[in-house]
């Protein structure tokens, strides 16, 4: 991982983390807090900097994770905007990962069916690609009033305000430049 959390930053981080946890988990007994801080689960973990996924303030968050779980998250003390603080949403970001409501497998709902079925990625992606192709081939307009227009008005795309820039770039490129959609919209409009 090529994150440049500097050594200075990292040392400062570890201190801040220990202090926060001491209050949360051990009350205010500083001595025992100090003794036990060595054994905290996160002591051996390197934080990964991220940016809060909610509002557009863009607060920095540090994620402490091991192989199979996000152990702890906290405000990034080195971030110039939030300087370690977070609001209620940024504070609970760990639960976006741990929430039992997360969908972790592709799902399929057949026409007229009353339930989802779990499917594998190949099945799901093939379905999507086939649907796009069928509709697109049927409705694609090469020309309109004698002018080349190369578009389809029968498929719509929505979304993007919570995605990464790189994702927005590929989505726009694929759906407009590659597939000829006109109905491309997202949250900025509503």
């Amino acid at each position, binding site marked *: 991982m090529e994150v440049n959390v500097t050594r200075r930053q990292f040392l400062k981080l570890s201190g801040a983390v220990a202090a926060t946890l001491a209050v949360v988990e051990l009350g205010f007994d500083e001595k025992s807090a100090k003794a036990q801080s060595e054994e905290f689960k996160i002591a051996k973990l390197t934080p990964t900097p991220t940016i809060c996924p909610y*509002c557009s303030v863009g607060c920095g968050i540090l994620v402490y*994770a091991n192989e199979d779980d996000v152990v702890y998250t906290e405000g990034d003390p080195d971030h110039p905007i939030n300087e370690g603080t977070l609001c209620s949403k940024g504070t609970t970001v760990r639960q976006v990962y741990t929430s039992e409501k997360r969908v972790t497998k592709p799902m399929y709902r057949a026409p007229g069916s009353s339930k989802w079925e779990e499917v594998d990625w190949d099945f799901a992606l093939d379905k999507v690609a086939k649907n796009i192709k069928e509709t697109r081939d049927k409705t*694609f307009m090469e020309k309109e009033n004698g002018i080349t227009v190369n578009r389809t008005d029968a498929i719509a795309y929505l979304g993007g305000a919570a995605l*990464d820039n790189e994702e927005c770039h590929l989505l726009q490129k694929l759906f407009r430049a590659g597939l000829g959609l006109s109905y491309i919209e997202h949250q900025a409009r*509503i």
Partner: protein
Amino acid sequence: MTNHWNDLQFADVLMVIGANPAENHPISFRWISKAIEKGGKLISVDPRYTRTSQMANVYGQLRSGTDIAFIGGMINYVLEHELYHKEYVAHYTNAAYIVADTYKFEDGMFSGYDEATRKYDQSQWAFKTDEEGNVLTDPTLTDPNCVYQLMKKHYARYDIDTVVGVTGTDKDTYMDICKTYGSTGEVGKAGTILYAMGGTQHTVGTQNIRAYAILQLLLGNIGIAGGGVNALRGESNVQGSTDFGLLYHNVPGYMEVPTGSEGDSTYQGFLDRITPASGYWVNKPKFYTSMLKSFYGDNATADNEFGYHFMPKIAPGKDYSFMRLFDAMHRKELEGLILFGSNPVVGGPNSFKEQAAMANLKWMVAVDLFETETSAFWQKEAGNDPSSVQTEVIFLPACSSFEKEGSVTNSGRWMQYRWQGIAPKGESRADLEITHMLARRLKELYKNESTPAAKQINALYWNYGDDDHPDIELVCRDINGYDWKTKKQIQSFGDLQDDGSTTAGCWIYTGFYPENENLAKRRDNTNEGMSNFLNWSFAWPANRRILYNRASADLNGKAWSKERVGIEWNAQEGKWTGYDIPDFVATKGPDDPTFNDPFIMMAGGKGALYAAAKLNEGPFPEHYEPYENPISNAFSSVQLNPAVQFGEEEMNAKGEADKYPIVATTYRLSEHWQSGAMTRNVPWLAELVNHMFIEISEELAKEKGIKEKDKVIVATARGEIEAYAMITKRFKPYKLKEKTVHHIGMPWHFGYKGIATGATANRLTPHIGCANSTIPEYKAFLCDVRRV
């Protein structure tokens, strides 16, 4: 934002109107509080006494939908009392420009209106020019047809009594606000305006923002530290998603989408149409051609007009925006809907109708972290009989922001990198990967075909790796742009070419990835001055932190204020120096004829007090009442914005004040976010706020016999919802000129899925929007309330 979050601390006065940062952008309040600690004043203008109001020095109550009356009165006050920044107005704005004699304004209407199309002939508002096409000016600002005089005349009608009779603001408070905010017109002072969807979600939304901008230009508050017109954007990357052209009318970098018109039938014809004669946009052909090269690679050559004809061309004059998309779905014109992190059943206007339209789809694809009300629209819980909904639905599980890597752009235009902290949960995948896998499959399906549809997708240049996992490095390099031959990264958008030799996926970001380093990853938080943090991440364009920063200095290039230095002309070094990246070539000196033209994106370089041909309803913001309103317009006999367009009638029932006498608005809460998928499914947040409620005044509660926590029904012409009543002092009845009206508010985050569930406010909202942006009028509509 023209400025950025840390910069708020430098304001002398902050006016928050149509926003509630204390609750909806909580951490931004660090910097607002800092300004207050330093002696700054906070003004909060809102229909409801919010937590921002609680922190403010002055709170002005304003009926939803009356911003233009409110700000128009302030403009009038500033002009009448000569509080404006005289040098700034004379030299940095178009105050001196002379307007053609065809411009007229009478009883709420500008000249050139066509009733049949509800459109204006905007050429009637043009500037007067000499034979060579140069705009005539009157530097003395006395010509009755100069912008300054026309503006003065226009807003003279916005006298204080008329204004407060419309907005419902207490008169003394209003005068206090005019005076306090007007004080920032003094040379060297700074005032900032912060707004959010309370400003934009109206039939006059764009003109609301225009009104803020006019006030800021008059007071000399744009381009300076602690100033600006600052949109507090709602989502972590709604800035980026807009920059990258995920809207029907824009390709990346705010450039036009070609239409199927005669003029656009050749690339040159299209470029001629979209490229102005002066201002920075004269470079548009370079940006556009570089973008086409990024889209189509080797299939974009000089011989085929750089692949221009592969680009879809929208039907001329057709509106493809969000509400019209649902109108089309209602008319069964759409077969498929693809959603990436989008939940219109909760977030869309008149959402029950929008949900009903979804049953007309043949197929839907939903990419999301959680099952949303939209992806589950066919279920019984949604009120549907599943057996009668024939839509095939495919749900693709996406992973969250820290289970992948990539960048997001905050409100201050900082492009910040997020590293991957853990592997995606279960089988979920990054949206980047999902898009890439889909593109590969589609390319595979089409590869042996030669239909026009196949030619387009086959021409698409998709070079992000040969397996299902895309190489994000390659995506980043593609966004920045590179030299096609040498594959070397482009350093700045000034180096882009229109001959196909360079690429740029999104030109405004060019420069974030010079050859060796992705600058979005920078984490040096040293404050080199004025808290601009030039080495933390990257800000578009060109790492500039405050837009139009030329205006932070006077006509000689000296800072207006010693405490607020942005950039200054350094005659010794022969260049601009200071704490920011200049908005132009750093060596542009006093000899340059554009030395005093700070507004580089405008033809002529002057700030637009008057918008000659940009906005659909007129060159000056004029007050019109919301689509649904309780009183007649006090400023003219024209009730509704004359340029608003109507969609499908069936999607947009209208309520009248006799049946629905109460004004309603929607808002957000600290604990929830947008349509709620990412908060109502998070246990702690769901626990913090777990019920849908409406907030009503003590007076209305008494009138209706409603007690705290009673179940009530809110009804509009679109439908009814049930919610708990929360009785507060935060709403007060409005004493308007004609009558007293009640006002209520409610959060719009709820739906029937997730841990915390509740009725969806948007079942009530109207399906009509701004005459320019078509953003729906969520923020002002009529309702009635009764006990269950």
